[in-house]
């Protein structure tokens, strides 16, 4: 199989170079650009499988470039930004980014996110849209209810029956917050009494299995003081 080609866009040349080396070590092909305009130009001539895009750049900033690319292309875009507020993340994702990584980032985590995005894109690709899926899909998560399998970026994740029950309940209702009691009654099918700890422990375990960075989960989220939910992600 052809090596995936990744476009790294950052006006800070040292950071761009570091990301390039990091990705080269992981056996990717890397092309560098130093602003949004350059990225758009490169995208016209080269075949690119993923873009890592800084936000604050001269000429054309990362978010505007992302929006322009999204008008025509469906390639995964990971936005890199020094802005770490929730509102910044939401803005980035709503502009069409597939993932949002804050600077300074953990290099291993960035690589993992790149892999995750690539797996999904290569598997499904632009062609993948045509394939019919019978299971539940939320972003890179795919739950095949017939075979009782959870795929993350196409990789099979081993779950206990309880964990499966929880993820099934949440994935059937993406964006809906369930309290520990509700989850317990629906999954354990027993009356709930002081079950917060029990449920929370399971949630933690599932998060460790499906999230790249369990401390900053992308899919399975704790709604503090209320309950738990699977994030409802934009379907592309």
């Amino acid at each position, binding site marked *: 199989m052809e090596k995936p080609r990744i476009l790294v866009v950052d006006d*800070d040349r*040292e950071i761009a170079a570091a990301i390039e080396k990091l990705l080269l070590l992981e056996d990717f092909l890397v092309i560098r650009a130093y602003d949004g305009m350059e990225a758009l130009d490169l995208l016209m001539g080269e075949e690119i499988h993923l873009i890592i895009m800084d936000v*604050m750049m001269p000429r054309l900033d990362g978010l505007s470039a992302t929006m322009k690319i999204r008008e025509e292309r469906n390639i995964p875009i990971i936005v890199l930004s020094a802005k770490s507020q929730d509102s910044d993340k939401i803005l980035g994702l709503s502009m069409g980014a597939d993932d949002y990584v804050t600077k300074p980032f953990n*290099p291993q985590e960035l690589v993992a996110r790149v892999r995750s995005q690539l797996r999904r894109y290569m598997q499904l690709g632009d062609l993948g849209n045509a394939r019919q899926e019978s299971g539940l899909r939320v972003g890179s998560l795919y739950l095949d209810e017939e075979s009782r399998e959870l795929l993350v970026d196409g990789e099979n994740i081993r779950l206990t029956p309880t964990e499966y029950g929880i993820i099934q309940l949440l994935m059937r209702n993406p964006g809906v917050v369930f309290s520990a009691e509700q989850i317990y009654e629906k999954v354990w099918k027993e009356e709930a009494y002081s079950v917060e*700890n029990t449920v929370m422990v399971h949630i933690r375990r599932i998060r460790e299995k499906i999230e790249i960075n369990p401390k900053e989960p992308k899919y399975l989220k704790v709604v503090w*003081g*209320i309950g738990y939910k699977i994030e409802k992600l934009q379907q592309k």
Partner: protein
Amino acid sequence: MDTRLKSFSRSNWTKLASFLLIVAMVAGMSGIFVYWYFSGINPEVLLTGDYKESEAYGSDLRSIAYGVARILEGEQETVPGGISFYGKNEENTLSWPSNLTEKHFIEGEGEYFYLEEGRFKNSETGETIFPYGSEASYEKAYFSFDDGYMQLKQKEWTSDREVMIPLMVWLVIILLGLVALLVYQFIVTGKKAGDEEVHTAPFDRIYLELLIAGLALMGLLWFSGLSSLLYSGDIGFNGNGGMSSRQTLGIYMVAALTAFVTAGVGVTLLSVARRIKAKKIIESSFIFGGLRRGVQKGRSFMDGSRFDRASLTGVLHQRQIYFVAGSLLLVLLTFLMLIVATPLAIIPPIMEGFLIYWYFKYNRETFDEIEKGFNESLEEQMKSERMKINLVTNVSHDLKTPLTSIISYVDLLSREEDMSPLARDYVRILSEKSERLKNIVSDLFDLARSTSGDIDTDFEDLDLKKLVEQTLVDMEDSIEASGFQIRTDLPERSVNIHSDGKKLYRVIQNLIDNALKYSLKGTRVYVELVEEKGKAILGIKNTAGYEMNFSKDEILQRFFRGDQSRSGDGSGLGLSIAESFTRVSGGEFDLQVDGDQFKVIVKFPVDR
């Protein structure tokens, strides 16, 4: 030349000398006048040297004629000295000396006076000198002065004239000098050699009315002095044709008194002159200047210019006091008027109307000013707040960008295979420290944003008990790693509050982290949640592993660390962030230090 003249004419010594000279001159003049007064000389001697030409002679003549008429009518018996007369009617003739006849007068060479149509007439000019009266019973009457008498009179006249003329000459000389000196004084007063400004003396600030009163007082003093010193009984020369010692003393006394009064009047008038020159004559008057200042003062109470140095609210307050006091006064005045002069009672209400008008007018101005100042300060504050937030954002970016490079390259370095064990150890340390730096920077900006208020908040109805449980499970790994046990005391039922769950998670996480980091080995951390008086009270309590010799305020300061050593992996901002996040999430944050017991209390209002 000009300057030298000015420096001479305007020198204080010249002024003083000329002033003293003026005083001396006036005193001298007064002495001359008193001398003349005591001499009793008729000033007419100055006008004519011939006694017969003088008005004094005419007056003598009339009194003699009157005397003759009275003798002829039998009303007077003594004959005035120095005359001869003759009178004849149908019954008898009367004459002095007794043997005198009509011929003595008609055929005599000298001038005589005769009776015609009831009038005494001059024999040479025919002029009437005295109306004898229509009831005269004498047909003919004559009288004349004796030659000796006339010669004596003329001699007296001449000698008086000889006394008076030198006096008058002196008087004129002194007067001319005085006028010159006075003109000089009034020109140079207030001027100094150096410039052309008018300089007023401290004395010139005394009210003009006081000066006038002073002048009046001095005038009174002078007149009363004169009236007691110039005793009319002393008039006349003594036997030697000179002044008696009493008279001489009188002259000196009057001169001294006059000198004194002149000095006082002179100083006063010079002051008035300076005021006029400096155009301050009106201000220096109590009535006019004082009135004007009074009006200005009254006005300044109202328009606030009097309180320029006071705060605007102070102006409002003061004006209010004056308004109330003024109104009260006017009310009292109204009652007074009603009793004393009823029609005038309309005046105070009208004045009150003006007062109210002024009060509102100037209050409005002050309010406008306050509003202006308030808006300005608000804008200023917002501007500085915006600048602070911009600064935080920019510094954040500027710190995070190089940090990203550091972390990335340290990671790349750690993948190099041909490294000595020592170098690998160094890279490990670099990696750890850059990770810690990342946490500090992140905490720092969380804190900066939450204290400046530029932080997203997401308020929801949530269960604090659930949140505590979730956080504890979430932190299970670090709790286990620390070796400490957490004892919880949570209520049975849910504790519903309205807050930002994510922020509260950070708060509790930081507090537990803090407790785990600084607790004494073998002790436990207590987490308790109670609902009391509508408040959810979360307490996190631990026993410190070091002596807590610091105050409550100190520990909440940024970067304060209880153990003073700056090792470890915390940013030192944990408690500060917990405090700030509690506040932005709508809670209260408090901490207690009791011996080695350290307790943080977080309170939220409970939702019903």
